[in-house]
């Protein structure tokens, strides 16, 4: 019974603290009135008054401008999120760690690549009134779980790596008002691959493999639909699991269907296993192999080894990536001691800079250095991004939140040595 007593008293203490910290309503600075015009006028001597429809963030002198990254940071897909987080951190470094005379503070939340992980992370971030904007999530599932909470809190997030088409579809619903992405939608990528295979390679019999992820399953289906529409035949559609290592058997099944072309838009680990083992399975020695942006990384050459020679990968068109990209990669290597872990670091870098630009555009700075940012104004400014010079290209955001340049190219690996990785020469752009 004593135990009960001590537990109860602890609970009471804890809930008193929590109750003291909380408030029934997270009231915006002023009652929600009609949205005022964007406060672009220089600061008045008079005190700033927030007229934003969904509230303002006020940053006192000495306080940081607080942004957050949410995405997968643990588990099997950790490299995807960690890679994007690194992109964000480099963007902050490049800004000198400051914005408008305030330090930039970055909070990271692990969203576990699951919808409930996304929901929990989003709830936590939504409860922090000092956060100005976010970068994330990593996996489309996380966004599905978490976006409603963020939008409701007046926040805006830009995802560097969600590619599920539905997230920026015209009918995506009001919950997605606070959602944009610098990644491309897979609707473009699958189509480009199908055209390349049918028209350029001239293959008529294709097979696909996906890894059970929403990304790969949707992407290979887009390819299949387009390839059939062009007149091709899909002789096998198989699937593996993300954590499989031995692919010999599934490849034997595919070999039995005798395709000319094998498309597996999955991730580095499983993609590496398939590439290496395809050469060891009778009947697949001469089949053309192709992957997508999930494998577009020097890590894939390491993982797949010599077997990656001559295979094709689709990816955002790096030839349209300005020179800044290479400088960025150098910084990445110096800072983290590793080659880029995945593919969306540059997209995260651009997302961060889009947010910085928008903040600079809408922020009202008082004489004492206090910064006021209207949340709706910031959101509008991000959506209004036009001809932004990023390291993934020139970006313009659509009204449905697509900021990424949907220009997909096909590359061919000419040298399987990971050290020679240099998009443009190796892998070499072959289409369009």
């Amino acid at each position, binding site marked *: 019974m004593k135990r009960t007593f001590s537990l109860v008293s602890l609970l009471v203490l804890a809930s008193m603290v929590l109750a003291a910290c909380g408030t029934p309503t997270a009231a915006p600075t002023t009652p929600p009135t009609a949205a005022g015009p964007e406060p672009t006028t220089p600061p008045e001597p008079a005190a700033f008054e927030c007229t934003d429809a969904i509230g303002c963030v006020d940053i006192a002198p000495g306080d940081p401008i607080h942004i957050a990254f949410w995405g997968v940071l*643990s*588990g*099997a897909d*950790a*490299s995807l999120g*960690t890679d994007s987080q690194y992109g964000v951190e480099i963007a902050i470094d490049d800004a000198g760690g400051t914005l408008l005379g305030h330090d930039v503070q970055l909070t990271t939340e692990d969203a576990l690549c699951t919808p409930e992980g996304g929901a929990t992370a989003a709830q936590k971030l939504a409860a922090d009134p000092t956060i100005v904007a976010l970068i994330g999530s990593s996996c489309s599932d996380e966004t599905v779980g978490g976006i409603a909470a963020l939008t409701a809190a007046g926040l805006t997030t830009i995802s560097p790596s969600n590619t599920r088409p539905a997230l920026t579809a015209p009918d995506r619903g009001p919950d997605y008002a606070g959602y944009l992405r610098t990644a491309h939608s897979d609707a473009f990528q699958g189509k480009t691959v199908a055209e390349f295979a049918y028209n350029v390679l001239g293959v008529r019999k294709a097979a696909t493999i996906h890894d*059970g992820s929403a990304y790969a399953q949707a992407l290979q289906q887009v390819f299949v639909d387009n390839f059939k529409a062009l007149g091709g035949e899909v002789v096998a*559609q*198989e*699937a*593996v*699991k993300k*954590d*499989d*290592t*031995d692919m*010999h*058997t*599934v490849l*034997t*099944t595919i*070999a*039995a*269907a005798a395709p000319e072309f094998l498309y597996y838009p999955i991730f*580095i*680990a499983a993609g*590496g*296993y398939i590439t*290496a083992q395809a050469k*060891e*399975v*009778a*009947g697949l020695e001469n089949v053309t192999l192709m992957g997508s942006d999930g494998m577009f990384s020097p*890590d894939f050459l*390491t*993982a797949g*080894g*010599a077997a990656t020679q001559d295979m094709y990968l689709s990816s955002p068109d790096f030839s349209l990536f300005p020179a800044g990209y290479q400088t960025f990669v150098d910084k990445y290597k110096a800072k*983290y001691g*590793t080659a880029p*872990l995945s593919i969306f670091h540059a997209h995260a870098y651009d997302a961060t800079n889009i947010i910085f630009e928008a903040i600079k555009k809408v922020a009202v700075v008082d004489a004492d250095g206090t910064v006021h940012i209207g949340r709706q104004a910031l959101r509008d400014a991000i959506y209004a991004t036009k001809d932004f010079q990023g390291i993934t290209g020139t970006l313009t955001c659509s009204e449905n939140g697509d900021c990424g340049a949907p220009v997909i190219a096909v590359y061919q690996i000419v040298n399987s040595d990971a050290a020679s990785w240099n998009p443009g020469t190796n892998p070499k752009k072959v289409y369009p």
Partner: protein
Amino acid sequence: MHTSATERITDWAVWAFLWGFRILVLLIVVVGTIQSLRSGQYTSDQWIDFVVFGIARGSIYAVLALGYTMVYGILRMINFAHGDVFMAGAFAGYFVANGFSRTGFLERQPVVALLIAVLFAMLVSTTIAVVLERIAYRPLRAAPRLVPLISALGASFFIEYSFRGFFGPGVYAYPAVAPLAGEFNILGIGVLKMQALVVVAAVIMMAILYTIVMRTKIGKAMRAVSENKDVARLMGIDVDRTIVATFAIGAAMAGAGGVLFGLMFHQVNFLSGFVPGIKAFAAAVLGGIGNVVGAMVGGMVLGVFESVGPALFLGGVGIIRPYQLQDAIAYIMLVLVLLFRPSGILGERLSTKKA
């Protein structure tokens, strides 16, 4: 003892259900097999390939299952962290192999280089396992059965995420070893050299282990401790030392297995040990946990069924993307085997007190 009518009815229903379950699975197997053989989708060469791939896959399970089975035999404890000890060995081997590959030593002296890599991996794995035993398991030896299981789960997370901290979440890839590329031709069947190596290594390891357990003094001590710790202590056996030796030997096998895994599949990352660990546990149970030869048999059976099953059974009954359900075949087969032989293929009839 009286049995009421309802009890008789439930007993009958359970009996009917169990037989229904067995017959259903059998039906899928038979119909699937006939259908897929009749469809002629695969040539006979491809069927042979399936079996060969399965044996190679099973050998890796077997190597890991050896360690599981040894620890279980002595402590009656599932060492969930065993797969992660295996991963640690794979990482250790990677750094040695990669270093040698850079200096060119790997190309000049592949055998020596790989031996050093294997030895180093065994050393690292053994160290981790022995430290683990000391910190996480030894204090719990007298605790209820599930307590060390949870501690082992904790250890598994701890090792995985320590390695994630050390080396990051990315993929590390073993260098290609020239003499291991290509294939042998054995009796007209093409077998990849790497796969042959894995199978041979697994058999050798099992033989060594069998000899240790059956012929050496420490093996005798192990068997004694396995029977009854207290009596063994009274007979003058150092129980602690015997248990540490068991962990060390099991871990050394796992370390060597890690390098084999790395050479065969090239990639390692911090979660590489998780799935093989669980499969190896299943293999150990399948073969009869606590039994060295059983671990080998269990691994092979599991590997072959996983390899042949999706194409033969599932593809035949018209299930699309059967490879997504590859693991399901393994687990359902496991349950079936346990239904007929509750202590595995080669398991002794467990006295109920032990279970």
